[in-house]
């Protein structure tokens, strides 16, 4: 098989798969190189499933809003796979005055961007979710937010892109980008060399060393975060939940299980000697204690699995997205900082537009790769 295509996408996560799908739909030939054995190996399969606009930085909020208005509602039907998209609102919870101050600031900022989000008090919180504990004194409420299943969404994009002719190679780690006559042309991987007009680097944390091979650096770091999931439980609620300090998030899935993320406070300094993305022994118990303070009724729900995954945290907390003009042919989509899943359809769609028309429906200029400036 020829190793030349219109576009190479490095990274078979939800971003790469979404881009592959929307590009294939436009008739663009795509090759996706996934370094691990599994499609969606990284953060795409290791997140809490939030599809939200509230709480986002104004620089990426337009992408979130675009996706929720234009892409998520019809996605399951379009892909023929249940992404379990549930737009039943997002409660971002506060337990202290300090929390409420954070939430207020985020809310005001989002309202200025045109988002329907507001602060609500105890009574209204209880009417939306009666299972929350009395410790919660206030929240931001965005009724158009929600959640979806990152596993089926990622694989849904993959299956459909593949069906439309995209070529996928897993276990093929890209090690070097190479320019030919001033333009990025080749991707050298462990088992082969691939060529294309355009290369999208959407490899999460792995993007940094790869981009380094053409002299571009994205200031980001890995942070090992953990989630846990319970056995299926009777239906309780369908909102997405978050917390003012972003140290607790989760939802009840369509299947009935609760998926929650939390933290022990040791994030960033835990051991991972074997590189197996190991769970830290203190995190799941800490997460459970956190959950029970929000949902005392869930105390008897059984945890059946925990997992860990790196988030690619950008220096300024928002993704790097778009053309890197100094290396013609290079498109960067990384550093999603732990909130990439919710915007993945919009990112994929906009990348496809960017590559085929040179323009994007959403202004992504604030996410440029060269935006980073010293603070003084």
């Amino acid at each position, binding site marked *: 098989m020829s190793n030349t295509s219109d576009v190479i996408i490095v990274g078979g996560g939800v971003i790469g798969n979404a881009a592959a799908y929307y590009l294939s739909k436009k008739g663009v030939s795509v090759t996706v190189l996934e370094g691990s054995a599994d499609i969606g190996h990284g953060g795409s399969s290791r997140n809490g499933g939030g599809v939200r606009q509230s709480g986002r930085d104004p620089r990426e909020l337009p992408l979130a809003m675009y996706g929720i208005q234009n892409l998520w509602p019809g996605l399951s039907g379009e892909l023929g796979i249940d992404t379990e998209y549930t737009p039943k609102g997002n409660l971002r919870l506060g337990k202290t005055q300090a929390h409420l101050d954070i939430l207020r600031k985020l809310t005001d900022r989002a309202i200025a961007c045109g988002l329907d989000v507001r602060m609500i008090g105890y009574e209204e919180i209880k009417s939306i979710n009666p299972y929350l504990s009395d410790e919660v004194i206030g929240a931001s409420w965005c009724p158009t937010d929600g959640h979806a299943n990152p596993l089926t969404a990622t694989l849904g994009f993959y299956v459909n892109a593949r069906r439309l002719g995209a070529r996928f190679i897993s276990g093929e780690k890209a090690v070097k980008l190479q320019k030919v006559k001033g333009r990025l042309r080749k991707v050298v991987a462990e088992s082969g060399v691939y060529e294309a007009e355009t290369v999208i680097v959407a490899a999460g944390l792995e993007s940094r060393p790869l981009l380094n091979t053409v002299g571009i650096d994205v200031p980001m770091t890995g942070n090992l975060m953990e989630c846990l999931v319970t056995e299926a439980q009777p239906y309780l609620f369908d909102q997405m939940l978050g917390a003012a300090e972003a140290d607790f998030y989760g939802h009840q899935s369509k299947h009935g299980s609760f998926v929650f993320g939390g933290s022990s406070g040791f994030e960033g300094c835990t*051991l*991972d*000697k*074997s590189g*197996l993305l*190991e*769970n*830290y*022994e203190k995190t799941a*118990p800490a997460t459970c204690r956190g959950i029970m303070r929000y949902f005392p009724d869930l105390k008897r729900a059984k945890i059946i699995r925990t997992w860990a995954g790196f988030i690619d945290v950008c220096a300024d907390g928002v993704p790097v997205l778009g053309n890197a003009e100094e290396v013609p042919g290079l498109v960067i989509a990384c550093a999603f900082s732990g909130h990439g899943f919710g915007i993945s359809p919009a990112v994929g769609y906009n990348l496809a537009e960017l590559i085929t028309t040179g323009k994007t429906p959403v202004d992504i200029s604030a996410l440029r790769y060269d935006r980073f400036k010293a603070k003084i």
Partner: protein
Amino acid sequence: MKRYDLIVVGAGPAGLSAAIEGAKRGLKTVIFDENEKPGGQLFKQIHKFFGSKEHRAKIRGFKIGEELLAEAAGLGVEVVLNAAVIGLYQEKEVVVRIGEAVRHYKGDAVIVATGATENAVYFEGWDLPGVIGAGAAQTMMNLHGVRPGEKVLMLGAGNVGLVVSFQLLQAGCEVVAVADAASAVGGYGVHAAKVARTGVSFYLSHTIIKAEGGDRVNAVTIAEVDERFQFIPGTEKRFEVDTVCLAVGLSPMCQLLKMAGCRVLEIPAKGGQVPLVGTRGETSADGIFAAGDVSGIEEASSAMIEGRIAGIAAAEYLGYAVNAELEAAIAENEAALSELRQGMFAPGRRGDMVEFTDEGIHVSVSLLKKGYVNDEEIARFTSASETPGFRPIIECTQNIPCNPCRDVCPRNCIKVESITALPRLNEYNACSGCGLCVASCPGQAIFLVNGDVGGGFANVTLPYEFLPLPKEGDRGVALGRDGQVVCEAWVSKAQISSAFDKTNLLTIKVPAEMAGKARFFKSKGAV
């Protein structure tokens, strides 16, 4: 954090043995086991073990469990039950659920002896209530005293399927058939023979097409399969049953080792995914050892030896034993292990079709196909004579590592040259008819025949592990090795003795010409 020299996960034969060897050498040792009772699978194994004295042969599995537990307790090993190890984290941190809390422990060495889990096969209706694992049947009847059903079909003619079939019969259930997709009985022939002689039919090259039922299985259909395991239409056989038992192999339960980052390989001959281990049970992770079924499916006897080696290795690793002692202990245990791994059922010969015994005798094909040695084939191995006086008839036809019959005979009538050799009679020694060999044979393959007790009759003494025990004078029928009625029979003696350890001896009187055939007894009432 609480720290032990040695943390052992799993209180089965391997784990207990490992803890014993560690504690003997001064290691502060704890064992965690998720079950309410220690002993692992030993406590479901109510048959007498094969092997030699050193391997605790002729002792029943659950008794071995009790012995190991007492030995461990005597050495100061803490055995914590109802303690599920939920994770083996970095730096050998063991997290255990005990009661309503999780506790964190550190082990300077950790031995994982988590054993195995049962395989399953799927077919239409396999999810119906009443379709259960063979281990489930054992648990229900041997631990909880409840019969899993009344009429049972057993899928699987390996040792588990055969042993559990016999246990079902002992519990008072009816076993309608033993089926297996393989073309030959995979377990010990003697295990099959003691099931077949009670009248259970064997269907080799057969597997289940479907189970039927509403809220519980009420029928099962099996059919013959060809060499490619495809059903042969027209060969279907339907049985009305309320229970189907699945005994289709075991898989090592190595998740904890995987979580700990130990290198794991997939080795079909060992039953699936197993940790990469060295001769001392050491895994690729420093200070973490594996022993027993978790590192490859074998018999409990082998698990005990592997456990001992790992326990000594952990002691050496922590400086409680000198290397020379370790090497000597390993050599000794390895010799024992290699002895156990000899014969027709040696791990290296798994799957081979063996045609001749080590003695050069053509093996019984009928045993492999139907579960019993037929009348024609038995003559190659033993024969009953129609003369007065006792004589043991040893229907042991496969080379398996086992020799209690030799050790137990007070008159040295029986010789077993190497441990896997077939037992032979020392013709010059007169048998006293004590019956110890009959009761001791773990395969229940020895019978005493007195070929002439007058009036044209002979006495056959057979092992009998069922209730009720027939009484002297009871009338009934004798069944042949194939479980078919061969003649009328009268009970002339029923012996119970503590020396027989619950294998009662039933002596039946049959016409002299039937002495070579009568191998089981059914009371008239039970026919």
